[in-house]
């Protein structure tokens, strides 16, 4: 294991790989620090650029971009109360009040340090857990893979949206889009409607670029935000920023809270579909719960920045565990990474950690390096990232659309570009009516895993569905899927009942 880790760092430090990690981290921080652009959009836009790279370089770029973007989200969250990425939503609660108190530099320094600690903890967890999980997954058969795919889909569908039913429908349409083209087992065409271009199936990358990147531009235009200049905060505030770190005396009492946040973040990140945003919420909540002075939260305490930032950065690394060890993406960004793996002829999963061990450990090392790099980038270039907010949105919008169009064209000729625009329009309509797009992307990625697995499992068990579904691990995973679906519905019903009761009480009192 130690040999693999050292080999991973050796490869990651090769000049070309290291340059790519620096570039990915820089772009990631820039994307994260700009509200409206997040790591999913960045990863979707950058996939075509990885076309000319080696597989390890491509994944390193996307992994570094991911790590950088999760950190970058805290910059506008602290300075302007606008989280650059959803992961930084809890950081606004104490970060912005600190800025108002004239402690912006300290808030940014605390966030930077916490991101580094959380990220490195997450990468250490990823390096230890992923190989263990992959070893266990080597025993998985088609029925277990089917159940894993369903778990991944239900987790994202039920947790990542305002409406669980709509999210499930979105995921199902993703699975349906994955069936377009030739049947994976008998080779007969499905949903081709006489179009030759559809025989090869829906090209995943143009679809993802359309759903994530281009659709966002249409969303901004429809809301009228694309024409307005973005609020840049106060100019003086930007000039005065100088990062300072909290003292050891301030940090010492927070060691257990930090450890809890890191552990919870890692665990939440490993769970499919939950992601870094939930990790930040969980991290913040536990910090409030265990704090001796909970009343300080929300008024500008460094603990309110440390807890969510450690948790979300640990979760970002944790989200790579199911992708690398099981081949099941746990979030929208890791789903896009899975597409990058497939584009470069690699199949993430237990065999990757057996057959391509150096590659897997280079990715772990690359993520570790990206975390160290964003620390220096954040420290020395904070003013540059703050100024990025001054770029008017029309330029960003045109940049995104031009990159999307050319990128989709590069991945799948003119038909790829047309498909990208079609999915962009679809993504816009879906967002408008609260149909989350992430489950659709996950469905598109998981479809080619779930369908053949189920059909093969049925064939092996002579079409006995009960025998397939009652295999111990399969049954356990499917039960977990049920819990994941039912829990949010149960809490929603409970919340509604409580608010109704509260309303009645108010009426009669």
């Amino acid at each position: 294991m130690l040999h693999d880790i050292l080999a991973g760092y050796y490869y990651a430090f090769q000049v070309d790989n290291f340059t790519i990690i620096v570039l990915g981290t820089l772009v990631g921080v820039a994307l994260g620090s700009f509200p409206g652009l997040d790591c999913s959009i960045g990863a979707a836009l950058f996939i075509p650029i990885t076309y000319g790279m080696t597989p390890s370089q491509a994944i390193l770029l996307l992994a570094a971009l991911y790590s950088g973007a999760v950190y970058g989200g805290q910059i506008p969250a602290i300075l302007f109360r606008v989280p650059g990425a959803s992961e930084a939503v809890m950081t606004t609660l104490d970060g912005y009040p600190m800025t108002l108190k004239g402690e912006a530099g300290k808030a940014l320094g605390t966030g930077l340090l916490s991101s580094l600690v959380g990220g490195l903890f997450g990468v250490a967890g990823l390096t230890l857990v992923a190989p263990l999980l992959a070893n266990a997954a080597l025993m998985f058969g088609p029925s277990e893979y089917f159940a894993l795919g369903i778990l991944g889909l239900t987790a994202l569908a039920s947790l990542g949206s305002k409406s669980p039913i709509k999210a499930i429908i979105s995921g199902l349409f993703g699975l349906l889009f994955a069936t377009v083209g030739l049947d994976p087992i008998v080779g007969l065409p499905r949903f081709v409607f006489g179009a030759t271009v559809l025989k090869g199936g829906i090209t995943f990358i143009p679809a993802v670029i359309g759903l994530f990147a281009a659709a966002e531009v249409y969303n901004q235009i429809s809301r009228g935000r694309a024409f307005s200049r973005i609020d840049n905060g106060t100019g003086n505030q930007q000039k005065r920023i100088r990062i300072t770190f909290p003292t050891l005396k301030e940090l010492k009492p927070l060691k257990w809270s930090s450890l809890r946040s890191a552990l919870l973040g890692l665990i939440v990140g490993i769970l499919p579909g939950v992601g870094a945003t939930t990790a930040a919420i969980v991290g913040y909540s536990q910090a409030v719960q265990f704090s001796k002075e909970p009343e300080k939260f929300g008024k500008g305490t460094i603990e309110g920045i440390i807890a969510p930032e450690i948790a979300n950065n640990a979760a970002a690394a944790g989200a790579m565990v199911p992708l690398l060890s099981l081949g099941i993406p746990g979030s929208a960004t890791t789903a896009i990474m899975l597409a990058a793996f497939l584009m470069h002829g690699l199949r993430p999963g237990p065999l990757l950690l057996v057959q391509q061990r150096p590659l897997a450990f280079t990715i772990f090392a690359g993520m570790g390096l990206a975390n160290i790099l964003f620390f220096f980038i954040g420290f020395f270039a904070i003013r540059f990232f703050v100024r990025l907010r001054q770029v008017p949105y029309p330029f960003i919008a045109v940049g995104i659309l031009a990159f999307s169009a050319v990128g989709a064209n590069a991945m799948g000729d003119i038909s790829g570009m047309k498909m990208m625009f079609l999915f962009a329009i679809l993504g816009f309509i879906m967002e408008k009516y609260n149909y989350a797009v992430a489950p659709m992307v996950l469905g598109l990625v998981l479809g080619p895993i779930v369908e053949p697995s189920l059909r093969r499992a049925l064939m092996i068990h002579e079409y006995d569905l009960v025998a397939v579904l009652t295999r111990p691990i399969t049954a356990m995973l499917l039960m977990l899927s049920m819990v994941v679906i039912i829990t949010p519905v149960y809490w929603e019903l409970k919340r509604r009942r409580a608010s109704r009761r509260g309303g009645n009480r108010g009426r009669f009192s």
Partner: protein
Amino acid sequence: MGLKGEIIINGVTFAVACMLFYVATTFPQLKFADRVGPAFWPKTILFTVIVLSGSLLLKNVIVGLRRERFDQGEVPVQGEEGTKRLIVAIVLSIIYGFCVPYGGFLFSIYLFQVLFLLILKVKKVRVLVLFPLSLTATLYIIFIKVLYIPLPRGAGIFLTFSRLFY
């Protein structure tokens, strides 16, 4: 987002799922794979979509009847200007998709950017000329010079123009 819009979107989802379910029933079957043939998985998915979208539709209709607000609908959230510009932006994107094979990548992407900036209310001529030019140059360097991706060259005079560069 109004209730009317909800009913329309859920109705369309329901109708599309029903139509695709019918298409799935026409898939050819193979004797050896009859029980879990090509139609098995799409039909399973579509059946679930029909049930879920049907339930959403039913819920919308019941809520609508209770509120008796059917005729009034609800005020759209987005501004009229945003909607108009969005439609123009989408139409421009579609036109771009169809024009690239004839206009070639260099010319079409430049024109697309200029027009898109105009839609987004950018009026300064210097910006309208220089920003798309620099972005086109960046895309040209990344995709053609570095990644060697064969982007469309266009036809006729545009082909001649493209050949000057790649």
